[in-house]
């Protein structure tokens, strides 16, 4: 799981173009949206594309993302359970 969390952090930084940020700057237990990392609805859509591209997980609507993107850890757990590649 820790390995997946780190990989995910790198992918998030890359896909969201978080300039100057390193994996260790992201607290895997902090919220991705709002107060934590401060991401927004477009970032959520990019993360949905990321999950499909890298892990073969397809969400039907953007609302499902709300639960999954609570934190990097929650996201990693979801990916671990549902990945198809």
């Amino acid at each position, binding site marked *: 799981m820790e390995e997946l969390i780190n990989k995910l952090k790198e992918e998030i930084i890359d896909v969201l*173009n978080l300039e*100057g940020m390193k994996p260790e700057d992201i607290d895997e237990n902090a919220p991705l949206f709002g107060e934590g990392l401060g991401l*927004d609805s*477009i970032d959520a*859509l*990019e993360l949905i*594309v990321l999950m499909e591209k890298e892990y073969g997980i397809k969400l039907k609507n953007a609302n499902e993302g709300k639960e999954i993107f609570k934190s990097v850890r929650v996201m990693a757990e979801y990916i671990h359970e549902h990945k198809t590649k």
Partner: protein
Amino acid sequence: MTKIVVTGIGIISALGNGKEQTLEGLRAGKTAVGPIRMLNTKHHELPVGEVAFSDEELKQLIGMSADTVTNRTTLLARVALKEAIAEAQLRPSDSDAIVLISGNTVGGMEKSEQYYWDFQQNDNRNEYIGLHDCGACTEMIAEEFSGHFKLTSTISTACSSAANAVILGANLIKDGTAEIAVVGGTECLSKFHLNGFNTLMILDKEPCKPFDAQRNGLNLGEGAAYLVLETEESALRRNVPILCELSGYGNSCDAFHQTATSPNGEGPYLAMCKALQNSGLSANDIDYINAHGTGTPNNDECEGYAMMRIFGDKMPPISSTKAYTGHTTSAAGSVESVISILALKHQFIPANLHYSNPIEGHSFRPVTEVKENVPLKHVLTNSFGFGGNDSSCIFSAYREQGTEDRIQNSEFNIQKAEETAHSSQLTAHSSRSTYIRAASQISLQAPLSEQWFDEPVVPSSLNCDSQEANYSQYISPMAARRMGKLFKRAIATAVDVLHKGDCEQVDAIVTGTGLGCIENTEKFLIAMLNNDEELLSPTHFMQSTHNTISSQMALHLKCHGYNCTYSHRGTSFDSGLLDVLTQMHLGDIHKALVCGHEEMTPEYFRMLDRIGYWKKEGIDKETLHRHDSNGSFSGSCSLNLLLTDTPDANNLCAIRGMEMLYKPDSQQLDSALQRLLAQNDLNINDISTIVMGLSGDQANDEVYLNFAHQQCPDTPIVWYKHLFGESYCASAFGVYTSAIILQRQTIPNHLIYKGKAAEDTPIKHILVYNHFQNKDHSLILLSSCLY
């Protein structure tokens, strides 16, 4: 006050071709949205509002030969324009001030996505390359009236484009630039924007349910609609029936997010407030609202709250007609204006289809069944676009001259709205003067400085990119994460120009950009073609809409004022300047940013190279000066000007007036120049220098040199494109160069193309002349503030 009336309307959408079929469809209360039949895409799970005619059939409808090279955006527009012009009985001889303002965003994309690899790899489809941009469509649309327009322009503000075309047309009439304005918008379905909206996950796989608690997104549609606006005097003189009045309009920027609307609908609220104020009506006068109502969770909720803020518990009947037509995006503003006018004329209210239950927190229910025999006097229609570009228009039953009963002191409190919008519309405008307060540029020259004036960088490549500034002082890394180069340049120059002009906030942000963020547009297009319409980035799509640059500036500056974007080829910037000058003359705005932003990618450069835009080699000053071959060199560039109507010792110069013309003959061009000079009690000998867009391209330069030879053979000529390169918004640098010359009262040798500036003589007046392919022309008169 000038009364503006509507004398012709034309429409084509999924509901059918023309007013009759549209009316029939609306009254039948049946959706025209259905499965995809023509669009070449794999996403057949998405229902759309497709126009039932093929391109060939559309060509037949307007009597165009089958082999004419054009695109669907243009064809839809021409069908609708033809109907509007026929109803208004409009003939070229009716006025010498008929203008065409057309909105679109997708442009020729539906062809470009088919032929993109040809564009990149061979010369097989070169005839479509020059038809890709939005302005090219407007040029082809103008041909439906044999090009007999005084001026044409293209607005590209995504889903509010057509509404903003209505607004500009009306303002041009009020200010006397136009007597008759043909206004509207057009958009055809394309694989590109179907996939784009799909990445945003806002497309419903079922027919859309506007304002319903269970709504799940929008259905895309296609179509076009145009209105003929004119002064009441013009309509009476021409003796044509008047359909209704355009009694008010307003535009505001939500300045909240690139795609989402603010929770309380601030932008929509301000747009509706401005429209009410502009009309002199009170909220209680509105008899029906044709809402934007796309069916997305975000729009409908926020639009509902904005309407509740204005109308409270006295909500007029409301319906969104998007469930009939699909969301026709850039055309929606005029499609729904025409629907509103039909409702007004036939005294009925179209239904809000597929509605069951209210959204939590909403205190109203839309009209769910067609209502006949409803006395309607005033109808408000909303159009909101990406980037929070929000516009509202009010159409009213025509009251003959002398029967006005409008309540001038509306009980509706507009004060707060006005304060928030940083506008003070009610103040009478004492003079018509407009000044350039400050300027800021990023180009191949040293960024955010005027070093180029004394020590210019000599361009060295056929495709010169800009020298980047240090953006971190202007934009935080989090804000920068989704910004392409053009956004960063736009924000840096905007912040810099406000700082230089000692100004905190503006009333308007107006952008000219021929192509918008093509880097991200191409990324999306290429990924779509390579990945078989899968795994696409919503960020790239969002940034492909031309007005994201202007809305990013508004977002950064938290500017809720007027926001507009012009994508009209080589006069994109000029169009924006005309808009701002017009509104300043009308006293509607007092401080504004007007800017030009353009970038160039290797791919787009290659495409334009195929159709002769660039020289093959040699871009040194001497080669360009010889102008004995085709093409020039490309220069990415960004310029922000701060305009004000307040005199100030630090203003760079005064803008005394401008004229824009479409395909003028030499006599029309001469008359425009004489008009411009006479308005300012000047004659041509008062012009110290003429600044022109000479670029080294033979055909381009010939037009400029002929003009100078005929009008002012002895006046020194200044050029600037040898320093900044050629781009669709390069003309902005002509105005900028002139402003700096007027401020510094000197012309460095490197700017002189021909002649010699008289020494020890003050530089009082400069004429800036710009044309694009000898079709669109602009003349701008600038004067020194020192004399």
